């Protein structure tokens, strides 16, 4: 069998920085004739101003509305007409744009990304149209749907107090309606500079020709000032904070508990144990909370736990949270769930995690990380985040090894720290029929 039990690492990516500050990461893999292209801008929900909640996401939509050489909707038709797929997404600390294409269309993708980075075209008509589209996005994903925004929109205001950390990244209709073309122009000028972006290409590529192509398309963009990144730090909650949401559409209650964790960009040895704690608590039927809450005590129908409030553990800066979420039957009280959760955290903190349990949890973690990098676009996006936030794209290939080095005591210490710190408890009460 062509396999080995050696730890697997991905080949180190090629890195360079253009004169205008655009960072470029290349990860060749010629096993299939496809490439993934990702451009991340270091601007996310946390940076949008008060009175403009939801603006980073609205702006993401505007990035598909045309640029100097690309008409409205043409960005989509050109990529898809070349056999590719594409999308964009807005996160707490970044906004990303990405496409996967046959490798013969790589140059087209670079052209399109460069054209909108150079010369985004913003019009009143397109802004009004996308305000309506985003409003429908909010209706379909939040307002018209049971459990809409649970817990990613509803938990932050319980766990955090400052506007950047606590506000709703989808925004509200009043803020969206108030957005102007001038706002968008300012936002573009301020945050969408080459030096505030990372370009990654993964897949069927030759590094030298791809760097030359990146130079050709992006190289002449002028360097622009990059805004200093503010700190969003705030003190952790002192004790317990409570939030209540009565969901008129939900047929069953739910609860989400948020804790604070160390700075993700601090020493990884201090942070990764929290990631593994999530796996110990809630990955699969053998996990602690599945056994206790779902199988044994029948307090919950479904449970999940892990680092990250919106997205994962490795695509966010400080502050972020560790979130435990449970859906539960109507006749189970939140207090009963919290008592059981505390008991399981105490058990990890006091008795630790045995070698066999840690080994299986890290094996699963490693396999899941590998699986996520199998697609060229998954690989490109992850490399981009590691470059942008840590300056180390190769960390993507090192995660499994890092997880394997975490001692059980560190996971126990993480559980103890959660127990010792404050937390935010969001209760969702079911107001729906059924």
């Amino acid at each position: 069998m062509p396999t080995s039990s050696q730890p697997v690492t991905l080949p180190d990516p090629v890195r360079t920085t253009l004169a205008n500050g655009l960072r470029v990461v290349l990860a060749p893999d010629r096993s299939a004739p496809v490439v993934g292209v990702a451009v991340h801008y270091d601007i996310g929900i946390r940076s949008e101003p008060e009175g403009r909640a939801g603006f980073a996401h609205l702006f993401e939509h505007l990035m598909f509305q045309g640029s100097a050489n690309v008409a409205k909707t043409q960005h989509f038709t050109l990529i898809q007409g070349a056999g590719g797929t594409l999308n964009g997404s807005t996160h707490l600390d970044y906004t990303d744009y990405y496409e996967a294409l046959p490798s013969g269309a790589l140059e087209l993708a670079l052209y399109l990304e460069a054209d909108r980075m150079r010369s985004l075209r913003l019009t009143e008509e397109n802004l009004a149209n996308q305000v309506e589209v985003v409003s429908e996005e909010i209706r379909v994903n939040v307002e018209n749907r049971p459990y809409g925004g649970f817990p990613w929109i509803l938990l932050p205001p319980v766990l955090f107090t400052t506007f950047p950390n606590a506000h709703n990244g989808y925004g509200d209709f009043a803020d969206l309606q108030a957005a102007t073309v001038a706002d968008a122009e300012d936002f573009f000028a301020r945050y969408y500079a080459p030096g505030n972006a990372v370009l990654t290409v993964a897949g069927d590529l030759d590094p030298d020709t791809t760097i030359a192509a990146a130079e050709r398309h992006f190289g002449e963009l002028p360097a622009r000032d990059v805004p200093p990144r503010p700190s969003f730090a705030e003190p952790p909650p002192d004790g317990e904070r409570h939030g209540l949401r009565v969901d008129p559409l939900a047929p069953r209650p739910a609860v989400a508990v948020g804790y604070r964790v160390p700075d993700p960009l601090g020493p990884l040895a201090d942070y990764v144990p929290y990631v593994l704690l999530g796996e110990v608590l809630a990955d699969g039927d053998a996990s602690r909370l599945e056994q206790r809450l779902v199988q044994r005590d029948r307090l919950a129908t479904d449970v999940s736990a892990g680092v990250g409030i919106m997205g994962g553990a490795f695509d966010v800066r400080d502050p972020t949270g560790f979130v435990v979420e449970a859906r539960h039957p109507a006749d189970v009280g939140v207090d009963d769930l919290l008592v059981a959760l505390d008991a399981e955290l105490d058990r990890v903190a006091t008795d630790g995690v045995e070698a066999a349990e840690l080994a299986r949890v890290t094996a699963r973690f490693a396999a899941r990380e590998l699986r996520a990098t199998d697609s060229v676009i998954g690989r490109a996006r992850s490399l981009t985040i590691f470059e942008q936030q840590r300056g180390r794209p190769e960390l993507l290939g090192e995660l499994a090894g890092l997880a394997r080095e975490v001692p059980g005591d560190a996971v126990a210490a993480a559980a103890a720290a959660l127990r010792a710190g404050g937390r935010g408890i969001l209760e969702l009460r079911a107001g729906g029929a059924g």
Partner: protein
Amino acid sequence: MSAPARTDTATGPPPRPLPAVTQGPLARLPPSAQDGLATGLSVLAVRRPAVPLVEVRLRVPAAGTASVPLGPATLLAETLLTGTARRSQVELAADLQALGGALGTSVDADRLSIGGSALAEHLGELLDLVAEILTGASYPEREVTGERTRLADRLAVARSQPGRRAREALLGRLYGAHPYARELPEVDEVTDATAEQVRALHADRVRPDGAVLVLVGDLDPDAALQTVSERLGGWAGTGVAPPGVPAPLPSPALPALVVDRPGSVQTTIRLGGPAPQRWDPGYAAAKLANLVFGGYFSSRLVANIRERRGYTYSPRSAIDHGAAASLLTVAADVRTEVTAPAMVEIGYELGLIATLPVPAEELDAARRYAVGALALSTATQAGLASTLAALAPVGLGLPFLAEHPRDLLAATIEEVAVAARGLLAPAGLSAVLLGDASAVAGDVAAVTPVELA
């Protein structure tokens, strides 16, 4: 901000020519091997070594709900992994995790599905666990009763989603008494099911004759087949093989069904109708017609009701395949006030493509997208495994991945016009609108005949 380095004149910079797209050759098929075991299990192993994992997909048609009661079959799928004679639910899950593995189960009218992945070096051990489950799932009383209760709660949650409710109404409209009408059981069908029933169902229907196993990943295909025959050779079935899925009767075109959801801020619009099967001669042309209409972002439907009118976020159409019939669905969630105008625009785009040929340039873009998207979706281990697991049980396999792109490239404008008429003519589709009936029914009735649920 620093000043721009380029000198923009009053007329602006000259346009930049679009770079040429190089058309590569169609993707080559990966190395593979296939075999049939004496027990009737078909096995397909495909080498794709990009990451050191292996994907496993098992499809068991005999346990599909077309010929098995929906309640017990659903409970079987939910409790298949809750224990064997040798391992408890927790031991099973822990042993899987140690392989870097995970398994999941589901059931539909066509088949019971078991799927998962593991580190490639542990393929043999993964198959051992799969064999143990297939031959020795014990359905412990406590786990079954616990899961039954949870399943009832999960069904209530699933049915609170507007998309699920609208789909159920649409499938009922299209398929009547045929098993394709129902994807989820009613709560009492689950609460009435017993562990004893589930065990009997497993003994009778979780059998290898007619079943298909697909393995994709960092493996040697011939060695993988050998491993399968060693590990799964002991899985056998007894008794008469069950019947296949009967073809649904054609549904007459019915008035649009308005299902009341008081206070709903959006109307969940769904239209549906029959579509060609993958092996039908007009399939490639129908797939292209669907793409042009609403099957991708660059479609007419998106350009109209999203990018031009702002009625909705994610309008779309799709063709889904069952063993006995394929289904076209058109979907749009629109704010309540524009429900009737949205129906007008959807009907306009349907009518247009059903009656006028698609311009060559628009069709060619859809062709290139269809070929490229297939290549992308089969460029990962998981994507390739799932695609092959959908194809293999209906007699299509890897060759389809080579032939279908050629069919897509060869379909003519005339063939697409014929396919569009059959697939998308609005007179042949049934509509369901889930929303605030008091706010929308009157306006919609001015556009199309309406019936209140």
